[in-house]
């Protein structure tokens, strides 16, 4: 229990702090407590006043957190103001969609990025390097939303989750490629690699044991960060592809200042970021100690 308790407490502390800060930011942002129904010409002054009261413009942040904390203890995450549905229901519907698409996209991105990086580092060929670099430069220059549209056009809209996953992979891959290439290039330049090559070790063994293994720490840290990248890319892609995932929900909630939904989404993001990074750190620790043991 001991080794798990500390990281769990760290994750919890990060999540609590994150939610408090996120709530404060949202509360301070312009447009909070504003409902676009206020500009509906059909509504009279009394209705507009009622709408303003419902929007909670005058309600203190502290009273919200107290109510939220009480609800959280009983599994009630509140009700979305913009969509008029329980937040727990919304998340239950949408998390699997985003998790599936982002997970598949991330896997594809890592596979392609790592493969290209290993090829570039191993081949040490200007043409190969320029080709990979050029392709990734082009992808980096395309907005994530444009990538989403392109994948939809190419695929003809069959299988929305696959389209979103492909677009996420295209959005995240170039960033992973650049960083992994840098990490592997750094490892390649180590003296022990030159020694290993001189001793005639096979390229595969060289790559696996003498380049990838020592680079495990930064690569695993990047893996932790890449979940944030994937989730960030999912937001504009889901909006553009009309995929009913969490990313689309985040955008709608932000534009409508849907406080209950935003706070819960903020909590989810905090847990995702802290959790994935903690996992990466733990994996890095295991790999490091295994290396030392060897």
């Amino acid at each position, binding site marked *: 229990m001991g080794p798990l308790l500390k990281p769990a407490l760290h994750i919890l502390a990060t999540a609590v702090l994150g939610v408090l800060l996120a709530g404060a930011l949202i509360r301070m942002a*312009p*447009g*909070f407590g*504003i409902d*676009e*129904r*206020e*500009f*509906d*010409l*059909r*509504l*009279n*002054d009394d*209705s*507009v006043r*009622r709408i303003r009261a419902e929007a909670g413009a005058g309600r203190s942040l502290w009273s919200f957190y107290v109510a939220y904390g009480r609800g959280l203890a009983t599994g009630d995450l509140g009700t979305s103001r*913009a*969509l*008029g*549905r329980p937040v727990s229901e*919304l998340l239950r*519907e*949408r998390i699997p969609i985003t998790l599936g698409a982002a997970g598949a996209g991330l896997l594809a991105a890592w596979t392609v990025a790592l493969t290209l990086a290993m090829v570039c580092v191993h081949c040490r060929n200007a043409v190969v390097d320029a080709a990979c670099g050029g392709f990734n430069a082009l992808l980096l220059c395309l907005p994530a939303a444009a990538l989403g*549209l392109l994948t*939809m056009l190419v695929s003809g*809209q069959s299988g929305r989750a696959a389209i979103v996953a492909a677009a996420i992979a295209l959005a995240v891959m170039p960033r992973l490629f650049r960083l992994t290439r840098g990490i592997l290039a750094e490892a390649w330049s180590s003296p022990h690699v030159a020694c290993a090559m001189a001793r005639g070790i096979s390229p595969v063994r060289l790559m696996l044991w003498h380049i990838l293994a020592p680079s495990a720490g930064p690569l695993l840290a990047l893996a932790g960060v890449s979940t944030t990248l994937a989730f960030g890319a999912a937001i504009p892609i889901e*909006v*553009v*592809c*009309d995929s*009913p995932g969490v990313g*689309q929900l985040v955008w709608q909630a932000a*534009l*409508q*200042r849907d406080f209950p939904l935003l706070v819960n989404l903020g909590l989810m993001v905090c847990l995702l970021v802290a959790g994935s990074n903690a996992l990466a750190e733990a994996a890095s620790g295991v790999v490091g100690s295994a290396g030392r043991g060897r």
Partner: protein
Amino acid sequence: MKPFGCLLYFVAFWNLAGAPPAPVWGGELRFCVRADPKTLDPLQSADQPGETVRYLTGGVLLRLNRATQTLEPELAESWRTEAGGRALEFRIRKDVKFSDGSAFTAADVVYTLKALFDPASTFPAADGFRRGPGAIVVEQRGPDVVRIAFPNAAAGAERLFDEVAMVSKRWPADRRGAIGMPVLGPYRVVEYRPGDYIRLARNPNFWRTDATGRRLPYIDSLRLIVQQNRSLEVRRFTKGEIDLVDTLDPEDYARLARGGAWRAHNLGPGLGAEQLWFNQTPAGRIPDYKKAWFSSREFRNGMSAALNRADIARVVYGGWAAPAPGAVSPANSFWFNSRVPAPAYAPQQALADLARAGFRSTGGALRDSGGHAVEFSIITNSGNQMRERTAALIQDDLAKIGVRVTIVALDFPSLLERVTHTFDYDACLLGFSSVDLDPSGQMNLWLSSANAHAWNPEQKAPATEWEAEIDRLMERQAAEPVPAKRKAAFDRVQEIAARESPMLFLVYRNTLCAVSSELRNVSPAVVGPSLIWNVERLYFESARRAEARR
């Protein structure tokens, strides 16, 4: 006899060849809505997807014929106004059933209206009826007659019943909008997948029948697909995945108008206008000299004359918009005042107007009498490309008379906060889409005490004489039972608005839409819902098409 017989055959053949094909029964009509409806409760719905579902499922007492813009009896077979507009009496149609087979009676009407007019309720549709203090009284007078008494005269209130769907008194109020709720409209909701689609099936007990006595609608089911992205919606339409698009951007319309398996319709200027107004709120967080500018009629008229509306219509909307002649669109055939002179593009006239107010052009820059350079910002909502381009054109036009304009595109909540709460802005460019032809639907815009009186809302007393006059005229037309007198009052409001320019009306966007060639009996209208207002009478061209769309 022979030539006469041939003639008979010829006439019969001619009539048969020209006769419309018999309607085909069946199939599924598919189109998109921009978002999930916030609620399926017909009394609560205020957003467009919710109102679309309400239109398709709700039975109303009176229906506005979108083509002729006249009110027609629906579930009420007749109605009359009493006591100088203070009361309305409806005679309810007999032998009408809800979708679950239960009888629709006057008791259901009373139940619905009492719930709607309950002072504790927050139904958006109720506000239009509430004109001043006092309760609205609903009573049943006889088996088929319902009488509604208003505390004050409410001219034109009958048109609002187009938005009030009757609900069954047997259905629990807390489950209103749930799937399975009995309805009176041509369709009922049978499936709802949030973020995906809403499926409606025919109401087996819908009261309307076709000429052969068979119950309408012709089409078996509707699928409302949730699609926020407009270009994807158009793409789905061109691929045949959906059957109609009721609002097209000018660029998409231009593409579709080139031809294909569809009909693209340009209905001319619609009811939606682009408007610019200046912040005249005394509490506005702007310097006093700017307040003085914006309160000056000459300044506003000068700015108006400097704007090239024809270019906005041509350049931004590709010609599919019309320079706005005034506060009311020409598409609103009864209420439009054709005597109001349309604003012309006249930069020299603009400078002359401004000179009268003490503005002078110095070194290419316009300055007021206090030496301040005329510079202000225009806020508009971001993400609307047409509006951002309109703002850029305005910036360029005003630069020609020495006015420097900064364009700031804000997200809608931030913009709304500035315009309605903090009043921290100089000028605002927005579009208003009017769904109500009647001027009483714009009371909250024109009354100086109203919250939507954009340039200076919620005034305790009218700040200017012309606003006081508009207040009087609007109250008068709201209580006047004679339509011609109402029109005269509202014509005067339009003339005052043209003279004082509290809002600069720029262009009326054309209503652009497209329908699959295989869908019949479509009669596009500028009043929404443009293409499905007669949904019960729409049908597919061929049985094959209808079968393919099961």
